């Protein structure tokens, strides 16, 4: 019986079903899409690396003492010892590093994102990551092989000369063959270059050393046994792992990149589900209010409270199941779409059949159904409280505004504020959990609070609109004011999107303001050189620049990692102590940067110095992958945190790090040389290094801004989805409200309201509801954004972009206009007579 009622109710308004389901479909789609994509990529990489490491029984490499990419190279002297180990069939060292291919047009191939990988050619095919597709293997010092896609992009064929930029500099090579990486040509858009082994060792600065050593075992020897035996002959600081572990490590590294993507998708899944929950809650609240008489009648003829709850729950369950199932399917589409997107950006993933694991389906379904049920629970309970007498009454359902509700609203909001503050300023557990939980409560609290203030808010917001829109605007405003709870719930869906967009904008704006302000003040260089993706590059570039007559000072900047006394990983910059302060104002407080020229010295940022009780002259231990723990004497303390917390001299850097590559070059023109001329001169000399970009200070600032904006737009795009869901929420509320007000609209039409004015009335209502959501969202977003900015010490300047906030408010209003299109048309098309006679 209740089953039949539930399905009847659902079938009676298919539109509502669609609108309500949409949010769940999107949310569940993101959840399942995130998992499907993650699993598929995982599977693909697993397969790829498993194939590559197929013949490898054991791999010998430096231990990851600081991070997975800080492994020390293996001395070639270890190789004979390994070959002597019982059970070892073959062993060969391999060498890897970055190598940028330059196209025929003089432009670098790739390099803005995907890695540019270089390898030494290993003769043993079982131990070689590269597979020859055509041509021959590199043997001579000038021979090189590259992957097929890079060759196409570079417009070169075997036999051509090709320019390759390596850590040793920029050089001409002869292309002798084309290769693939294992079974795939295009690994996430990476470019592949293979040199003869001695060449590779030279250009990657690994003469007499290998990045790692691959070992194959004799028949019948277990990999693990072999690994054990090999480990025994290794010097300390090196490890022998099985091929399976090596595959796992390689896969994990790629997965961590994909993991970020998955987490981002899951966050947005969470947001859309949360917004969706509001819409479902609202939708059920409205329909139950509309069905008060029906429910009262049911109760009057003997239905129990339980069966009333049951009816609503079944309705929710049906919506939840249907929407979640569609959502899971949609998720597969999302995953496929993202894969295509990768392809479109030239960052292809290795192919694997799409992975839909039971876990994905179960989690996605459970989440979707659960959210729907939870959202419908309160309306269900409220429905069960409808007394039988309601069947006979013709009350207008009006939500009472009690002090109790106000108190609850304030308490929940306060709790939300508290948790956000705890997450941002406290140091208990994971700050993101508190922040997320706080934001959740904040939004719920805001919805409750909005219900209490929706009336005055609508009055104030509507006042200027009534002047423009006259009677339809006034009627629209009255409609928005008559059921504050409904208005608040509808508005909150939009509030969430607007708040997140606002917070992100304030964050980005402050980030730029802080960074740009700092750059202006701190950066004294006229010319800045970097690769597009901030990958390290050959020191040869700085050497070349040093010879440019127009440039007075040139400083290379290297970055590397060490572990401090607390075992925290820190980044240190290697610079020229004599000139650095002419190019970068670090804000020297104590000591002298020039003292860094003495061995074993370091400059420390003041906040770190303070918490670690460091003063000039005191020592701090630093653990380097190459040299182990070294006591460093503090030579200087400085205030700026724009460009790093620690400085050492370049010689000190060379002592403690194996790879010598620059991340940045700063330069100033000679007296009387303009910034533009200095830049021109630098660019001319750097022509053989198309992977490098030469900026003036202004251009560099623009580029920083552009990067921040790029990120911001990505966030906007994803949050835009939350706004779209919110628009559907408004459509849903309006459509249901119009259904409810059929008679009123008929009456208005009867006494002379034109269709156009009827549409305008609905539109104004939507605009006012949307603006309420927008205003509350701006306030919440500003709060969250400002608090986060305060917390991050890197953000020294708080910047609230008022212009953008006004734009958001206007966009919120426009969202209302868009949401109103369909319901308004429906309202205007109502037959006057039917409307008047409707029960």
């Amino acid at each position, binding site marked *: 019986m209740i089953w039949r009622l539930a399905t009847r109710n659902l079938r009676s308004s298919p539109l509502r079903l669609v609108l309500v389901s949409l949010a769940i479909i999107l949310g569940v789609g993101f959840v399942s899409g995130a998992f499907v994509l993650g699993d598929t990529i995982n599977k693909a990489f697993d397969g790829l690396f498993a194939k590559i490491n197929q013949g490898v029984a054991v791999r010998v490499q430096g231990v990851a003492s600081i991070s997975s990419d800080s492994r020390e190279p293996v001395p070639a002297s270890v190789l004979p010892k390994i070959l002597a180990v019982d059970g070892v069939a073959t062993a060969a060292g391999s060498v890897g590093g970055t190598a940028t291919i330059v196209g025929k047009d003089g432009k670098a191939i790739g390099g803005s994102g995907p890695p540019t990988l270089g390898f030494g050619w290993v003769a043993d095919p079982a131990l070689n990551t590269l597979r020859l597709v055509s041509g021959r293997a590199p043997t001579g010092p000038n021979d090189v092989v590259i992957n097929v896609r890079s060759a196409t992009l570079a417009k070169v064929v075997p036999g051509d000369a090709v320019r390759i930029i390596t850590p040793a500099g920029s050089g001409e090579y002869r292309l002798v063959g084309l290769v693939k990486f294992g079974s795939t040509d295009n690994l996430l858009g990476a470019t592949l270059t293979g040199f003869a082994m001695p060449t590779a060792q030279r250009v990657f600065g690994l003469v007499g050393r290998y990045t790692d050593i691959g070992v194959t075992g004799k028949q019948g020897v277990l990999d693990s046994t072999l690994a054990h035996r090999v480990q025994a002959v290794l010097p300390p600081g090196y490890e022998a792992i099985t091929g399976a572990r090596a595959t796992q490590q390689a896969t994990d590294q790629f997965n961590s990149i994909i993991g970020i993507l998955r987490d981002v998708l899951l966050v947005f899944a969470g947001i859309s589900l949360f917004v969706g929950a509001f819409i479902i809650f609202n939708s059920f609240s409205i329909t139950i209010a509309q069905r008060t008489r029906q429910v009262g009648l049911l109760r009057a003829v003997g239905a129990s409270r339980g069966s009333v709850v049951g009816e609503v729950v079944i309705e929710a369950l049906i919506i939840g199941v249907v929407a979640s199932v569609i959502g899971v399917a949609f998720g597969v589409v999302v995953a496929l779409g993202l894969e295509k997107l990768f392809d479109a950006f030239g960052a292809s993933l290795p192919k694997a059949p799409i992975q839909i694991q039971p876990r994905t389906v179960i989690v996605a379904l459970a989440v979707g159904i659960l959210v729907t049920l939870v959202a419908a629970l309160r309306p269900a309970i409220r429905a069960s409280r409808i007394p039988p007498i309601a069947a006979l009454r013709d009350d*207008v359902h009006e939500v009472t505004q009690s002090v109790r509700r106000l108190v609850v609203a304030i308490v929940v909001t306060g709790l939300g504020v508290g948790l956000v503050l705890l997450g941002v300023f406290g140091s208990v557990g994971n700050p993101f959990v508190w922040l997320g939980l706080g934001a959740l409560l904040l939004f719920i609290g805001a919805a409750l609070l909005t219900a209490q203030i929706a009336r005055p808010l609508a009055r104030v917001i509507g006042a200027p609109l009534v002047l423009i829109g006259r009677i339809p605007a006034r009627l629209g405003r009255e409609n928005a004011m008559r059921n504050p709870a409904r208005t608040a719930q509808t508005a909150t869906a939009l509030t969430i999107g607007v708040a997140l967009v606002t917070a992100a904008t304030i964050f980005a704006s402050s980030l730029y303001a802080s960074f740009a302000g700092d750059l202006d003040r701190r950066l004294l260089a006229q010319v800045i050189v970097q690769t597009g993706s901030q990958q390290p590059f050959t020191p040869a570039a700085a050497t070349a620049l040093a010879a440019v007559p127009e440039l007075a000072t040139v400083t290379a900047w290297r970055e590397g990692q060490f572990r401090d006394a607390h075992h925290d990983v820190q980044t240190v910059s290697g610079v020229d102590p004599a000139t650095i302060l002419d190019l970068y104002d670090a804000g020297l407080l104590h000591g002298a940067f020039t003292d860094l020229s003495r061995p074993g010295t370091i400059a420390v940022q003041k906040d770190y110095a303070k918490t670690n009780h460091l003063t000039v002259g005191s020592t701090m231990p630093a653990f380097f992958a190459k040299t182990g723990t070294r006591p460093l004497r503090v030579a200087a303390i400085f205030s700026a945190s724009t460009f790093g917390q620690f400085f050492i001299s370049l010689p000190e850097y060379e002592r403690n790090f194996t790879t010598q590559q620059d991340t940045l070059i700063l330069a100033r023109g000679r007296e009387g040389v303009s910034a533009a001329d200095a830049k021109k001169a630098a660019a001319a000399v750097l022509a053989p290094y198309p992977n490098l970009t030469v900026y003036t200070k202004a251009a560099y600032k623009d580029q920083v801004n552009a990067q921040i904006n790029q990120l911001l737009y990505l966030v906007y795009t994803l949050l835009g989805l939350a706004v779209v869901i919110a628009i559907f929420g408004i459509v849903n509320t309006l459509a249901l409200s119009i259904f409810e007000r059929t008679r*009123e609209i008929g*009456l208005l039409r*009867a006494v002379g*309201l034109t269709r156009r004015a009827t549409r305008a009335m609905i539109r104004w209502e939507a605009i006012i509801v949307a603006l309420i959501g927008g205003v509350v969202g701006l306030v919440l977003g500003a709060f969250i954004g400002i608090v986060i900015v305060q917390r991050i010490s890197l953000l020294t300047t708080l910047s609230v972009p008022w212009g953008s906030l006004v734009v958001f408010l206007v966009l919120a209003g426009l969202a209302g206009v868009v949401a109103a299109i369909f319901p308004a048309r429906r309202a205007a098309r109502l037959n006057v*007579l039917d409307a*008047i006679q409707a029960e």
Partner: protein
Amino acid sequence: MATSEAPPVAAAARIEDGAKVYGTGDAEVRALDGVTRSFPVGHFTAIMGPSGSGKSTLMHCMAGLDRLTTGTTWIGEVELGALGEKDVTAVRRDRIGFIFQAFNLLPMLTAAENIRLPLDIAGRRPDPEWLNQVISALELGDRLDHRPSQLSGGQQQRVAAARAFASHPEIVFADEPTGQLDSHSSSELLGFMRRAVDEFSQTIVMVTHDPTAASYADGVVFLGDGRIVDELAAPTPTSILDRMKALSGASQ
């Protein structure tokens, strides 16, 4: 569209050969079946007849809420059938007043706002003197700031009447305006309508089932199966009852 400067016509509203057919084939219902009638200016006409006889249909078609299947209707000199939706709406707004049986008022507006609603929609200034007269005649002075939910059924209908008369319409249509009122509230409302006719030459067409209500009118039109079956001038409750009995007897 003609304006009020046009020469006065004797009929405030007129229907000629009006027919309204719902459905087709077996399901065809002729709600109106050839009705011709004038409603003279300053006349209070009651329309009576058994349920389903087409009273509401007649009123809706004449008031521009619905369209005839065949035939013509006029409000004053304006033929409604010739007008588009937008112009019909304007005619309703500017020249016609309505009182329905129930649900006459917008719940979110106060009594005063409801009364002024058609004027506001038209963007016309109310005539304050007339408005006061209407409001005081309907004894609504102390209820103006109340919302419909705070008013009794009788009060609500009086507000609806005030709204119908507030804009000086050429003609007021009322479909069972007293249908949900007790006899005291009924007589208040009907008394007001009567006075509007007597003192201001208001034209009223009212559908009712109640002989007592109909007796306030100048004449009664009896409908049966979509046709005018009888008329009665200067009706009294007893004369109406007699006529109704005669009609129902004849139809059996």
